């Protein structure tokens, strides 16, 4: 190598990292089975795979959070032992977690300094930290104000703080764990600009994502993991999305789901100028008027935190509607108790399934009757009818292909995909008239995602009115008949499927009316 071995941050480069024959066993599971992975300076290497494929374990081993049972890690050709994240940070490895590790009530500089010794002993050295942040920010083109409080920042900005934090600690290699999951399309573009700059400067980046088109756009090489093993590594330029998807799941994947022709009927769910508060005390919804008709999927697009949760909760009775009305099949259900709304056959797949949709220490069978536990045949004269509850659970487990050792398994022991299948099974088996599905595929792997989407389309074909709230634009575009965009609690516009493009929706999601701006 003739070029400088220093990074712009002044830290040494990591020329190559090689993981060889990594095996990691957990009781009953082999998370990594002789997996190989390598990366060199100046490339974005994407790591693809379904949930449970072993991506996270492999990266946690590289970051020192787990010790491998077998295999070795070579840094610039020399074997190294990484026993803790401290070791990996000292070697120049940084990780941007999917869930940010920031303290919202502290400033950017305080967050960056957190956990590091101060150069002034017992006194803080925040001025020096701030200066260094500004320095790093200008080198890498990251706009950030060191004195801003983290809670004031958008999700995209918070991510930049995480990147700065890693750079400040001297990261030459960055592991980005699903960094785009929380971003708008525009923010994703900005992140990619930063990533390209870092790669050009000699950093090595590992990019973990489910979204094939992003992987194809940003990476130089792609490694696909399946069942803990490396299926293969390819140059991005020599592969296609279809190949990658097939590699990941080991079978053919249909990309555009079959929508079929469906007669659109009467309005089943109707909101009239609905307003409600949010958990932060600010307005959650501001005069939302929409309707969902029989046989259609109404997509609700928007960046996280623009009223999606409030919308779902206002309809399902979990949040108080301050003004406006909600109608289900013509019946005014505004501020009904959640149980009474359930009785009217509205199903709800909540966004945070473990928080709102499941009881983690209950068995699958008990969770399956969550909504109907007080009704025949599951409850007779106040006593639970265990045989019918078991039968019901077994039927749904079989019908919805829930992978579980038994119906008596506690929900917390299932994988995310299977938990969602339990929620889906429970909500769909009630023969609902309308369904609110909030982020129904978030965190699921391709196989489970495909399954959930297929089920929603089947319900639509049955004439159910489906409201699909999703931050995944691809999903909204693939499934919806009409798309409403939420921005700061307001419906910016409702766009028919035929007129919806990612660009148009992206602008609406950012609060810009295309007509006005042009």
């Amino acid at each position, binding site marked *: 190598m003739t070029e400088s071995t220093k990074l712009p941050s002044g830290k040494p480069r990591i020329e190559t990292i090689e993981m060889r024959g990594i095996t990691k066993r*957990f*009781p*009953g*599971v082999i*998370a990594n089975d002789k997996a190989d992975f390598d990366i060199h300076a100046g490339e974005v290497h994407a790591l693809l795979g379904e*949930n*449970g*494929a*072993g*991506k*996270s*374990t492999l990266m*946690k081993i590289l970051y020192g959070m787990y010790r491998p049972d077998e295999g070795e890690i070579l840094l610039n050709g020399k074997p190294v032992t990484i026993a803790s994240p401290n070791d990996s940070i000292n070697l120049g490895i940084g990780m941007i977690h999917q*869930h940010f590790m920031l303290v919202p009530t502290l400033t950017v500089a305080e967050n960056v300094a957190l956990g590091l010794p101060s150069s002034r002993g017992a006194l803080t050295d925040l001025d020096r930290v701030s200066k260094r942040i500004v320095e790093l920010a200008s080198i890498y083109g990251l706009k950030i104000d060191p004195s801003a409080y983290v809670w004031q920042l958008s999700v995209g900005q918070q991510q930049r703080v995480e990147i700065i934090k890693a750079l400040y600690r001297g990261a030459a290699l960055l592991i980005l764990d699903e960094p785009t999951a929380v971003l708008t399309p525009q923010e994703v573009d900005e992140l990619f600009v930063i990533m390209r700059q870092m790669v050009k400067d000699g950093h090595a980046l590992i990019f973990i994502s489910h979204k094939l088109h992003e992987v194809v756009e940003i990476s130089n090489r792609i490694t696909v993991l399946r069942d803990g093993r490396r299926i293969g590594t390819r140059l991005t330029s020599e592969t296609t999305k279809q190949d990658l998807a097939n590699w990941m799941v080991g079978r053919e994947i249909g990309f555009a789901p079959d929508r079929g022709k469906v007669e659109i009927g009467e309005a089943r769910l109707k909101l009239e100028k609905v307003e409600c508060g949010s958990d932060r005390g600010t307005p959650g919804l501001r005069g939302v008027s929409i309707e969902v008709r029989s046989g259609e999927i109404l997509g609700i697009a928007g960046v996280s935190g623009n009223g999606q949760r409030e919308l779902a909760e206002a309809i*399902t009775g*979990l949040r108080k509607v301050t003004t406006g009305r909600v109608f289900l099949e013509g019946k005014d259900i505004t501020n009904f*108790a*959640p*149980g*009474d709304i*359930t*009785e009217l056959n509205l199903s*709800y797949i*909540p966004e945070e399934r*473990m*928080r*709102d*949709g*499941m*009881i*983690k*220490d*209950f*068995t699958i069978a*008990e969770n399956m009757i*969550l*909504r109907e*536990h*007080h009704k025949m045949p599951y*409850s007779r004269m*106040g*006593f*639970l009818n*265990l045989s019918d509850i078991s039968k019901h659970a077994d039927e749904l487990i079989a019908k919805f292909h829930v992978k579980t050792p038994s119906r*008596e398994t*506690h929900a*917390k*022991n299932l*994988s*995310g*995909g299977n*938990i969602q299948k339990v929620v889906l099974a429970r909500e769909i088996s009630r023969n609902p008239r309308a369904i609110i599905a909030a982020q129904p595929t978030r*965190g*699921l*792997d391709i196989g489970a995602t495909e399954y959930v989407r297929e089920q929603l389309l089947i319900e639509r074909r049955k004439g159910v009115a489906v409201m699909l709230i999703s931050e995944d634009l691809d999903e909204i575009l693939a499934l919806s008949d009409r798309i409403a965009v939420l921005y700061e609690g307001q419906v910016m516009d409702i766009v028919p499927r035929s007129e919806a493009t990612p660009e148009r929706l992206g602008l609406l999601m950012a609060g810009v009316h295309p007509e006005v701006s042009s």
Partner: protein
Amino acid sequence: MRSRLNALFDALLPVLATLAALGVGAVMLLILKVNPIEAYAALWDGAFGSSNAFAETLVKATPLLLVALGICISFRGDVINIGGEGQMIIGAILATWVGLTFTGLPGWLVVTISLVAGFLGGAIWGGIPGVLKAYFSVNEILSTVMMNAIAVQLMNFLLRGPMIDPSQAELASKIPQTARLLDAFRLPRLAPTRLHLGALIAVILAIAVYILLWRTTLGYRIRAVGQNPNASRYAGIKVQRYMVLALLLSGAFAGLAGATQVFGVNYRMITDGSSSGFTGSAGFNGIVAALFGQLHPLWSIPASILFGALLVGANKMQRVVQVPSALVIALNGLVVVFVVSSEILRKRRQRRRLADARQEDETPPPTESGESQIKQAETGA
């Protein structure tokens, strides 16, 4: 195989913790220049050495078990009831009042009504903090403890004034106690010992509470609310109502414990000014017994017997080897500390196994709510 060993270790953990506590106790005995083997032999003899001794153990275990059953319900519903003492007292007062008032009725009827009155008294005393928690967000740990203080003073007032034994009222000594119950109103003895019907009632109720928690809609709802109030609301459960109910039922069982003490053991209420003077601290020790029994009503039976045995046996030990009574109390405390700590160890082991087994990726680890309790819904015990 490994998982079975783990399960065995978990199940034996409370026993190991008890042994460890006795081990530390042995060190304390040695410091006092007492032979621990002799001391523990006396303890064993006092608790199990004769049919009379064993009966005494069961008599002590009865209020512990009743309180523990209530604790199983409330802790499963994620409400912490520290008010067992007060609930026992109020239950006992109501029951005693019934027993002293309706002297013309047949014995079995009065006993039945009295026990029901005790149940209701405890329910009221538990229900008040329940309502305060559910509708006014008052911390139930604080309010139940405060309710204990109120109950004690109420008892002292009543036993010195309105409910004082008329014969005592005429004397200068004015011992604060009620009149004695009629002989016909005593709970029947089960053997030629002090063992009374209350013990049998407690065991039957343990089975009933098991059925309540895992076989009824009510129990399903109490557990659901305890585990995850968000999901419970989503399920259409009126969360606040079931919070109140959990605390109310918990208090009711403690109230019944108080009533059985009066009708099965003392045949009157008497106060030394403190709550433990009447309850023998069963309102607190019942919590420990329930935790020892992993908040499972059936496991609470052996757990209560163990603590009953410790209480009775320690008395004998005190007499035989002449150790100060403070040591006996310390020994009890040691067992409590060790058992509660072992519970934390068990949970940590469980969490580690869970984390190890969890398929990686996606799901962020579920947040631990209500750390302080054991949340194990054994459905098929």
